[in-house]
Each structure stands twice: as C-alpha cells, then as structure tokens.
C-alpha cells in the first residue's frame, strides 16, 4: 500500500527534502511529497481497502493506493 499526504495539504517533510536538493546538485526537482509504503501478505486481498480505511491511512489527510504483486 502506498500512503501519501492528500493533495493540497501542507507537507513540510516534502518541502524540507525539496529544499535540500539544490545543495546536493539536484536541480529542477519539485512537488516532493513524503508518504509511506506498507508491505504485507494477505490471503484475502478483498479486504485491503477496508484495512487502509480503518488503520493504515487516515483518509482525512492521506490518500492510499493498493498494488497487488
């Protein structure tokens, strides 16, 4: 699951990373956002969205995306 800050919500973590980039010689990079990734094995992937809604993401402030591998 990929969990990231909702669009439009101030993400100071992403901003701090973005501001550090020019000093390291990385130019032309913008819109940096820091989220998190949760890896898991599920017998029943049907319920993963519910798991995100209930625990892994706070949908007031975060969006989530489920990738099945």
């Amino acid at each position, binding site marked *: 699951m990929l969990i990231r800050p909702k669009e439009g919500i101030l993400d100071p973590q992403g901003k701090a990373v973005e501001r550090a980039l020019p000093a390291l010689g990385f130019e032309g990079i913008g819109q940096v956002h820091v989220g998190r990734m949760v890896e898991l094995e599920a017998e029943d992937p049907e319920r993963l969205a519910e798991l995100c809604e209930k*625990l892994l993401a*706070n949908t*007031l*402030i975060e969006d989530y995306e489920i990738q099945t591998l």
Partner: protein
Amino acid sequence: MIWGVLQFPGSCDERDALHACEVHGDGARLIWHESRDLDGVDGVVVPGGFSYGDYLRAGAIARFSPAMEAVAEAAAGGMPVLGICNGFQVLCEAGLLPGALLRNVELRFRCHQVELVEEGTGERLSIPAKHGEGRYYAPAEMLDQIEANGQVVYRYAEGHNSNGSVRDVAGVTNERGNVLGLMPHPEHAVDPLTGSTDGLRVFERMSRVAA
C-alpha cells in the same frame, strides 16, 4: 468527581495527569490500556506521550485498545473525556473528535509556554506545550461547521501558534461538548511552583460538563 487516567505503553504524562485530577477532583486512578472496565470513574483523561511508539501515525494504534473502546462507549453516554496532546491525537484517530494532527509546520519538536484564548469568554490561559505533531487540520467545510457549532473552544493567542494549526485552533470538542482535546498540557499547570495554575480551568470546564 473521580477521574480515570488511561495508561498506554509509551504514555509519559499520566502521572502529572493523575496529580492534576487529584488536585482538581475527588480522586483519580490509572486505567491500564488492556482494561475494558473504567472502574466506575466519572471522567477520563487520555494523557500525553507516545502511545504504542506513535507507530504508523500518532494515536492510530491506541484507538483500538480495549480501554479506548470503553471510553468511546462512555463518551457516547455523555461522560467527560479530556484528551491531552497524544490523547488529543488518539481521540481524533478514534473519530471522537473532528480533524487530525499533523507534523509541526517547521518540523521541529516545540516545548514552550503558550497562551491560549478561550472562545466565548476571551480568557487567556498560560500553559506549556510540547509536541512535534500538533498542527491541527480539518478541511475548510468541517472547520466552518465546528466553528458554527461552537466546538472550537481554545485558540492560540496571536504569536503563539508555533505548530501552524489551521485558524489557530488549539482545542476542540465533539458536538455534544463532553469530549475535549487540546495539544498544550493543562496537567502541567496546576501548581504555582511551575509558574501557572491555569491548567485547572480546563479540568473545571470538564467537570461542568459532567454536572
């Protein structure tokens, strides 16, 4: 009024909360997070700290504890519930309070005395704040609604909103008014020895809810 103070693994302000409840009320006891029994208390404090290590998101795991299930039921029945700092985060995650708490705007853990203004009375309270994730956030429509309902009860005074909370919101209640959460720590301001007793006014507010 007998208070119960929840204790999670990683709580760190439960002793001060217990002391504040003893100073303010008729007694207080700790309630272990695995207990589903609130032990007959009249009100509950969800204290500050780093429950369950703040893993995933601050407060996200504590909300599923048996004690919090009992608190949610009691709150629905009108029991006063005061969430302080991490406790505020827990109550928001549990859906007992509107909104969420995000990383401070400057990414720094801030620890300092702040001034709050009580909505309605305009009274100022001087109490300590110490947190890294205290930036209150709610979508604009939700804010409009809770402001209209009178659920925003404390705001940071001008120049005291160091975490970047939207509309300077420092403390909110649920619709009924019996659940209150705030980031600053009233339990650290109950004795003149530490510079302010303004924190007691927050406990008094909660006891009026109980009455």
